């Protein structure tokens, strides 16, 4: 499991490879917060290579969403597979996040 970060235009794109769970959630949080600290304000987290997410992973996404918004930024999510969509629907977090079907659509939405 790992996270890769790169810039696409003025958007910071984070790929979550593997699981987003209790054992690695802090790593994701820190990477995004570091970019926020540097002045970045547009963030896209892409889940096309993600296995499963646990409640800790969901909690980190909620936390990042709040922190990014507090700084006047925006967070988008993209490429949730059907199982991950179900997870977001079960927890009603699909109502909290802006979720796009593809990375391209997410980038266009900023």
């Amino acid at each position, binding site marked *: 499991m790992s996270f890769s970060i790169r810039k696409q235009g003025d958007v910071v794109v984070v790929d979550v490879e593997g699981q987003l769970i209790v*054992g690695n959630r802090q790593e994701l949080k820190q990477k995004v917060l570091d970019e926020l600290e540097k002045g970045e304000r547009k963030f896209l987290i892409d889940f096309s290579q993600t296995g499963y997410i*646990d*409640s800790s992973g969901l*909690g980190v996404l*909620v*936390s990042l969403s709040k922190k990014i918004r507090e700084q006047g930024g925006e967070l988008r999510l993209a490429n949730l*597979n059907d*199982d991950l969509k179900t997870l977001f629907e079960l927890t009603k977090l699909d109502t909290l996040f802006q979720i796009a079907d593809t990375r391209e659509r997410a980038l266009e939405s900023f």
Partner: protein
Amino acid sequence: MEHVRLAVELDIPSDVRYIEDIVAMVTRQCAQLSYAPRQLALNVPVALTEALSNAILYGNRERPDRHVHVRAEVDRERLVVEVSDEGTGFDLETSEIDPTSPENLLREDGRGLFLMRRLMDSVERFDDRGNVIRMTLRRS
């Protein structure tokens, strides 16, 4: 059809880095018995990750001298998995909040037990050589 039952039983240290391997092991057993793709990708890994992280973080408080015991039995009808820690336990009924209510939606915690209950057919807690959570999932 011949009755097949797979079982795994092991003790792990109170360290969240062990969770992914345990989850992979149990999920693989379910896959061998043709559990549904949704169960293999969502129900089993997420619910088991929650049970293990609860045991490590809250039950054992990550104390290195405490262990988590895992026992999983899988057959073509159901998965039964028990996760035991050395903590004092908690009341399942009073511990669960509704993380989907508007006042809780922005909370960063409080979704673990909720997900275990939604993703498994039953979740029970009892005391037997420590604090034990037993989760059951019928194969689909």
